[in-house]
């Protein structure tokens, strides 16, 4: 369970990237096809944060494909973490905070799996998670920083946490080991068929994660032409050569939000919280049966959530552009 195995030797990191076809080519596929690109045991980085721009459609597809033993890392982990644990897709989550959201209290599902030692919740400070992706993105084995020191959080991560005396300043510095996911799942507002992605609003840690990962699976609200991307190249945030798959998945973060498109589906989230409050594991498994294994397609999943909720979430989502 030591995460040191996650630190990839530099030559291995480089050669895995160089071995990929990084040419300008189309890579549009279905959720099901994209799910095949993730292997059991992979380290999967998840874009977005808490209930924002969670690549939920891709997570849904991975759980339906019965992936297992995934090590999952994310900025902050919300309901998707519950579902990854309860479905058996993951037993190891690296994150800074793990629960549905402040207003719903502590996740009963997270508590069930961690307190019963069925899964590992590896806790790093929020900035440290971000700096670990950043080191990974930059091709360096660690990033120096100044937090986590002196706390029990650092003691608990063990050998992955190192300190040094700065040879320039004499300062005591923390060295955070690079995080290079095998695959990053990222949802965006728009991208082209090659994978050039443009993001609106909050970016979270997505850019660093995309550059750090060996490959990116993009889901997107809509696929636009490469010509459209080339009209505003300074709006592109993820370059195509990091991307291995592009999947058009409208409303692909439901019941979480996608900036400027829809806000969280609060009724659905309240209902989920209520189910898991009663019986964490059973509630979560029932939810998986109903919303993950039951639906025939992503559209069918959205239909189960309900048209009223979709319209309401979209109305609230668009409102960010209102004066």
């Amino acid at each position, binding site marked *: 369970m030591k995460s040191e195995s996650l630190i990839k030797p530099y030559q291995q990191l480089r050669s895995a990237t160089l071995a990929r076809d990084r040419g300008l080519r189309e890579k549009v596929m279905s959720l099901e096809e994209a799910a095949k690109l993730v292997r059991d045991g992979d380290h999967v980085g998840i874009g977005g944060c808490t209930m924002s721009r969670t690549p939920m459609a891709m997570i849904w597809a991975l759980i339906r494909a019965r992936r297992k033993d995934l090590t999952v890392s994310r900025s902050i982990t919300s309901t998707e973490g519950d579902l990854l644990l309860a479905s058996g897709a993951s037993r190891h989550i690296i994150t800074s905070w793990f629960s549905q959201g402040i207003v719903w209290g502590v996740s009963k599902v997270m508590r069930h799996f961690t307190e019963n030692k069925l899964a590992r919740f590896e806790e790093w400070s*929020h*900035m440290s998670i971000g700096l670990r992706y950043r080191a990974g993105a930059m091709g360096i084995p660690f990033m120096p*920083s100044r937090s986590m020191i002196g706390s029990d959080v650092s003691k608990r991560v063990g050998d992955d946490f190192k300190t040094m005396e700065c040879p320039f300043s004499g300062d005591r510095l923390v060295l955070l080991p690079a995080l290079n996911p095998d695959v990053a799942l990222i949802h965006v507002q728009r991208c082209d068929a090659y994978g050039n992605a443009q993001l609106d609003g909050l970016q979270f840690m997505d850019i660093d994660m995309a550059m750090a990962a060996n490959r990116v699976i993009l889901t997107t609200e809509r696929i636009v032409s490469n010509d459209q991307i080339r009209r505003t190249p300074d709006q592109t945030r993820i370059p195509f050569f990091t991307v291995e798959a592009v999947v058009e998945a409208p409303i692909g973060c439901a019941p979480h939000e996608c900036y400027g498109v829809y806000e969280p589906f609060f009724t659905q989230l309240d209902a989920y919280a209520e189910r898991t409050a009663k019986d964490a594991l059973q509630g979560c498994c029932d939810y998986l049966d109903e919303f993950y294994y039951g639906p025939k397609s992503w559209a069918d999943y959205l239909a189960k959530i309900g048209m009223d909720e979709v319209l309401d979430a979209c109305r609230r989502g668009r409102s960010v552009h209102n004066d």
Partner: protein
Amino acid sequence: MTRHQAPHRAYTASELLAVMASRLLQDGQVVFAGVGIPLLAATLAQRNFAPHLTILFEGGTIGPFIVPGELPPSTNEQRCTRRSNMVLPITDVLLLLQRGYVDVGFMGGAQIDRFGNLNSSFIGEADNPKIRLPGTGGGNDISSLTNMIVAMKHEKRRFVRDVDFITSPGWIKGHRTRDRAGLPQGGMWRVVTDLAIMGFDEETREMKVLAMHEGVTREEVRDNTGFALLFDDHVATADPPHQEELAVLRELDPERLYTA
């Protein structure tokens, strides 16, 4: 201006926290705030006396205006960005703390000890916890890298002699232990509760009561604290919430999402 009379307080404990905490801020400051009480307190300060105060959200927002009645459920949703000056990646907004742009970090807490260390990770043994809590989020970074205000309910189970787990470092074991641990900057500055306002002794870094709310007794504070609190030589009585302050809070949070 009407004042409230204890014990029939005309405001909730959360409202009291928000008002008292807001008064600790100063105009022109850059404040790293969590949602809930910290956000309400910072917005209240902005409206009342600190128009040039800037709120930062961990999700990556600089200087938003909060739309009354549309409080964000966390610092990471689009509601946090309404009419903000800038949106930036999470890592970069947290790095503002490290670079030194932030005057005050401001958050809630689950468990605090006499040296202001916060625990939001484990109740009980970390290897065999009674409750696994959600964890640090940016709490560790904020409390490592800037001066802290914490707002929380004053209960014996929350105010403990030693926290079970130091998620966010305060003064660690007091005296110069924080500095020596590698944290020469920042530190716990104020703890605001529904009973009192506390600081920390300059020398030993033990928690010390600076003021109590109207009608609160030392016994009441002691009874709700799991360790021996210091009391300042001149413990003041805090000016209770004004109607104007409460009115702003109620406009911001009409559904009492965070102020119930």
